[in-house]
């Protein structure tokens, strides 16, 4: 491949979209061609600048509420009970009661997530401020996992992600919602990621990745395989999603 071919593929290479043989060809070329190496370095610097400086605009809380308000009324239009037309007052009272009940459940669970998010951020911030990142400092998943399991009544899934840019630093115990929980500590560049893991209550469903952002921290939450996962870091949203995807893929 000459420089023109390389420049065409440079972006796919940077985005890890090339198949292995092509990526190796680019590797070999970059090792010998200064001009292409310089172009690569420049685009790579631009990529990290975008990821760390471009603003990620979060939706306001008001927007979610307005959308719910416009989606939910669809339920009110149809009569729920055949006798509704004969007993308009009674049905209206029942409808109001049911609506405020479902709304209460929705908002209760939203604020519960927010409250857990706050506690997870506090735990992460405490560990960074006090420099107490890990109780067991090891990049070996086979020593972190037994250490945690022997101190908890469950065994969290522990995977080292060094190969994809998130080396395991160690594990720690934290105390959340009146129970000790496992915290896996990962590093990405100079940033720490805390992954809180605890077993779900019976009947809780699997939940796709959900993101909260607060006070400069990004928090991702998902439920999977009977466990609740809360990842927190000062990394940006895209890198956090990379982390969650890498963790899910490595299981």
């Amino acid at each position, binding site marked *: 491949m000459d*420089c*023109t071919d390389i*420049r*065409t593929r*440079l*972006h*796919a290479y940077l*985005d890890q*979209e090339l198949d292995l043989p092509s990526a190796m060809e680019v590797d070999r070329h970059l090792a010998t061609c200064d*001009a292409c190496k*310089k*172009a690569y*370095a*420049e*685009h790579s*610097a*631009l*990529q990290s*600048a*975008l*990821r760390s*400086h*471009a*603003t*990620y*605009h*979060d*939706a*306001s809380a008001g*927007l*979610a509420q*307005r*959308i*719910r308000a*416009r*989606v*939910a009324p*669809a*339920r009110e239009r*149809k009569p729920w009970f055949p006798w509704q037309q004969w007993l308009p007052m009674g049905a209206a009272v029942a409808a109001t009661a049911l609506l405020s009940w479902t709304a209460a459940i*929705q908002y209760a669970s939203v604020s519960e997530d927010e409250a857990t998010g706050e506690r997870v951020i506090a735990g992460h911030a405490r560990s960074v401020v006090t420099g107490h990142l890990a109780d067991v400092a090891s990049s070996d998943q086979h020593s972190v996992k037994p250490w945690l399991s022997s101190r908890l009544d469950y065994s969290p899934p522990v995977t080292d992600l060094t190969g994809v840019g998130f080396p395991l630093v160690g594990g720690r115990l934290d105390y959340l919602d009146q129970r000790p929980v496992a915290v896996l500590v990962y590093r990405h560049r100079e940033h720490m990621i805390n992954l809180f893991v605890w077993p779900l209550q019976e009947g809780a469903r699997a*939940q*796709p*990745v*959900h*993101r909260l*952002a607060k006070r400069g921290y990004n928090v991702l939450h998902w439920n999977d395989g009977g466990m609740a996962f809360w990842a927190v870091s000062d990394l*940006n*949203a*895209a*890198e956090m*999603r*990379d982390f969650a*995807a890498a963790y899910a893929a490595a299981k």
Partner: protein
Amino acid sequence: MDDQTRVRRFESFFVPHLDAAYNFARWLTRDERNAEDMVQEACLRAFKFIDSFHGEDGRAWLLGIVRNTYYTWLKRNKVATLAVPFDEESFDAGEIEASGDRCASPIDQLLQEKDAKRLVNGALERLPEEFREAIVLRELEGLSYKEIAAIAGIPLGTVMSRIARARKLLLQYLRQAQES
């Protein structure tokens, strides 16, 4: 499917991706109010067609609807877009000499400055929208070329060339901003 199931599906598949939808809409419209309106409209559409959603990638589905809503809105409002004439196939050739050889300071040095955020946001806002949407989905949403192709309804090769073009323009804008 009854209405209650629809609302529940909407809550679990799309509400978690409101941030992604808003961020995308905000970068497309470059305006807070319009972005909010657009996300609202997109969510109502998503809800209307929720019966045809079978639990695939909720984020990609919603982002695709946001994008369609945006382009419909553009047409309706006849907003002149700043599309640059651009030949997708042949832009690569001949650009090697143009990039990097001038004695501009390296981009990482420029972005050490305290107004890096302003510079980066400003450069992104200047991008013509077809490049802006591709690079926002790639770098801020962390999506793969395949996912971007599905959302924008364009071939994979076009995603690749738009991202390449977006990056070249961004470097050019950042240098111009630095010189002025």
